[in-house]
């Protein structure tokens, strides 16, 4: 399922344009599974499961599978509707070097929300 993010993001030219300054790998956690998402000029070039502790990214965004499933509902319940609504309720966690995340915050929220039945690009996550 996570690989679907790549297809949807790379099919969205406007989203790629907004992320045109983003060149990095970040860690996206679903429950106990970490995935490394590599972005080049706003395009997702690779998504792979993390197997080695030395294989890492600039920052991480993690939540349980159940929480992401709620986040990706067409109309998500309150507290799950945006990563920055999940953080204060400790439903999601972020860590690492946050500067590139903050410099492109709406972009990162939007690429993660892309799994929301294709509507995640313009609704702010």
């Amino acid at each position, binding site marked *: 399922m996570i690989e679907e993010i790549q297809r949807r993001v790379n099919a969205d030219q406007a989203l790629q344009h907004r992320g045109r300054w983003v060149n990095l790998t970040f860690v996206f956690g679903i429950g106990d599974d970490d995935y490394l998402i590599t972005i080049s000029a706003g395009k997702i070039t690779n998504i792979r499961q993390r197997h080695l502790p030395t294989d890492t990214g600039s920052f991480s965004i993690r939540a349980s599978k159940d929480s992401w499933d709620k986040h990706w509902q067409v109309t998500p319940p309150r*507290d799950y509707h945006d990563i920055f609504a999940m953080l204060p309720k400790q439903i999601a966690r972020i860590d690492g070097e946050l500067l590139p995340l903050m410099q492109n915050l709406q972009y990162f929220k939007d690429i993660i929300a892309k799994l929301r039945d294709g509507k995640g690009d313009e609704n702010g996550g």
Partner: protein
Amino acid sequence: MAVEFEPMIGRYFMLEVSGKSYRIYMEEAGRGIPLLCLHTAGSDARQFRHILADADITSRFRVMAFDLPWHGKSNPPKDFRNEDYKLTVHGYKAIINAVCSALELESPVVMGCSMGGRIVCHLALENPAYFRAMIALEGADKLEPYYNLDWLYRPDVHGGDVQAAFVSSQVAPTSPDEYRWETLWHYMQGGPGIFKGDLHFYWLDGDFDDRSPQIDTAACPIYLMSGEYDCSCTPEHTLATAQRIKGAKTTIMDGMGHFPMSENPALFKTYLMPVLDEIATIT
């Protein structure tokens, strides 16, 4: 073909507050009970354009919305370049009292959102006899920060972009896309450091949960209205505030976020009209 002008009139006036002079921009429409509207932190009075254009409201209320100093089309003080903007309880109250005085408002209703929803309770506590009623949208007497304010004002992060991205989490996912992004556009346009300076009041200087029980709602009725999806002033924060303000009337607005008047004006009207109807009957 002639243009169809919207009904609100925008004007400027000079305001003296605490020894400083500000050029203030305000819009108004309607006649009747004065209804002064206070915008959220980091935004401006454009948030109230739907209220100002609603004949069901302006037929009974003189609706006024002004940009705070440093916001929207109101100027900062002339020596602003030597000052780091920071809103305080004292300074915010002084501005609103000065506006009420300058406009010679008699028994106004004040409707503020977010930090505006917080300050109206301070004003009700201080001078309940003067105000007809207070509407606190997304306002609570005790809040906690959930991100570091320094992200809002630094040279390596675009302030407008990050502000809009932060507050987009506070908009309901069901609000119309057009109005979500209009609300966020206002955040993209704020002056450098202004949202951060407002949040000093909203998060750090504005708590008054220890004094909330002293508010006399018999003298000045208080209506607390908060959105289901507001992750800043949550329904829980609002209900806790209502517990402390004896006699406060509370509405949790389903399907609404932190910006009711601008993110979903049609839905907000369904919640607001009964409150305004009740306020109109207060003698």
